[in-house]
């Protein structure tokens, strides 16, 4: 395999890790409340600015920054659930979509008001941007950490969802809310857990974005958020493994599209992403790993 192709694959894996982390939250939240949280990408932006603040203000060790971002992400998710989703439970789906769009715009506008739309540089510790020696391709330490951390977080998520009492309650609630209540499950808590966990992962993706590309701004969550949503739909919205798969496939496809075609096509990058979605859905209406809508509660 040529080094060039190898480099593209590595880049796709890194981008895919971030898409996957954001896509998981879309899917978890859809799975449990049957609504898309259109403000989900903006939680990534908040995560990125949380990292910036933590690094600037206190020069905290990177592990503390990571924990702070996870916590803030979870807190923002819980707030969005309480303010925008819980009051609408049982209302028509469209109401939920519109409300979360409103929350998204609100977060972005508040960001612009408070922080200005000007992109800012995030100064991560210099050791992170050291290239890994001895490889035929350019990969920095931060890139390796992004991929490893994403995999660790996804493994942890898998363990929570499949091996714990809370995870079982979340899966049962996602499948049949009323019967979950008959089992004694506090479904509000299960829903809150899905929002907290999904949003913490989105916040983390924002930190990674800042660490890899160096610049962040209040609108940064919009397009990657939309693409992560596409990844979730490709994987089969509601399916967590589907979101992971969709995230990586989309990251790889996007990078390879730009990297392998002549440069004049690079501008069609986003059109390509959404075109892929349409193609996948034409062939597989429920996405790659999604179940038929009738199978859901």
């Amino acid at each position: 395999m040529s080094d060039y192709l190898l480099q593209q694959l590595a880049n796709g894996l890194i981008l895919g890790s971030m898409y996957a982390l954001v896509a998981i939250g879309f899917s978890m939240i859809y799975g449990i409340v049957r609504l898309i949280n259109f403000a989900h990408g903006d939680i990534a932006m908040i995560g990125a600015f949380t990292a910036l603040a933590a690094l600037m203000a206190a020069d905290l060790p990177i592990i503390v920054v990571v924990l702070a971002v996870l916590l803030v992400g979870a807190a923002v998710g819980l707030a969005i659930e309480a303010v925008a989703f819980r009051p609408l439970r049982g209302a028509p789906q469209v109401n939920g979509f519109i409300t979360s769009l409103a929350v998204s715009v609100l977060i972005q506008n508040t960001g612009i008001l408070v922080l200005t739309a000007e992109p800012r540089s995030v100064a991560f510790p210099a050791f992170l941007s050291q290239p890994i020696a001895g490889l035929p391709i350019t990969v920095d330490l931060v890139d390796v950490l992004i991929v490893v951390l994403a995999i660790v977080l996804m493994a942890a998520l898998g363990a929570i969802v499949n091996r714990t009492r809370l995870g079982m309650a979340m899966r049962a609630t996602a499948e049949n809310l009323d019967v979950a209540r008959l089992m004694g499950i506090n479904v509000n808590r299960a829903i809150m857990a899905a929002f907290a966990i999904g949003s913490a992962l989105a916040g983390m993706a924002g930190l990674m974005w800042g660490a890899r590309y160096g610049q962040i701004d209040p609108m940064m969550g919009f397009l990657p958020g939309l693409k992560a949503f596409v990844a979730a739909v490709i994987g089969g919205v509601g399916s967590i493994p589907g979101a992971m798969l969709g995230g990586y496939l989309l990251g790889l496809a996007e990078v390879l599209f730009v990297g392998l075609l002549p440069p004049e096509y690079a501008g069609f990058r986003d059109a390509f992403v959404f075109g892929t979605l349409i193609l996948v859905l034409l062939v597989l209406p429920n996405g790659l790993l999604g179940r038929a809508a009738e199978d859901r509660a």
Partner: protein
Amino acid sequence: MPVPVLEIDAAQVWRGQTHVLHGIDLTVGEGEIVALIGANGAGKTTVLMTISGLLRPRDGAVRYRPHGGDPVDLARLAPEAIVGLGIAHCPEGRQVFASLSVRENLLIGAYLRRDRVAVAADLDRVVARFPILGERARLPAGSLSGGEQMMLAIGRALMSRPRLLLLDEPSLGLAPQIVETIFDILGDINRAGTTLLLVEQNAAMALELAHRAYVMETGRVTLSGAAADLADNPEVRRAYLGAADETMAGR
């Protein structure tokens, strides 16, 4: 009648804009099997949902007497609290968690219980009662046949160690032979000390199993009494027992 476990008193229940229960009175005594029969749409499921807390009466009371405690008004409680009081609801159409394994479905029935050792013992007991659930333990519940899912739904309800078990049409859509098996098991469960409130379209089988019964029509109780007496009642025979036989043949 034995000491009442549950007393529904003039309950008025609405579902959305529809007034479904027009003042229901119903009592279930400790250790009894009480059948609730009636045509499609009479409101039987609505009665069970009102007991388990999925619906709230606009008016009237749903009183439950916990072991040796003061009566509790269930109308004020959420379903997740009511199951903790010892009332399990096995819902219409089985509604097992299709994507969870058979074993997880059983364990989730014991969701509120913290006594791990006793839960494990009850799991063994349920599997002993329904051996097929042991054989299929690791498979997703959605892969089970209808009869197996019904057994799983009953097993799941038993895992909460209910004192009062609400059953909504356990015979629905099942072959007569499987219905026989399930009704035998319901008899065993009752003899082991669990009180049953059994909603059924299959009036013949329900009246044979039950001690007492209520007949519902469009949101009201129209008849009640000893199950054997109702089975001999000409009106019941004409309206429900004949109809039940036809329904069985139709399946």
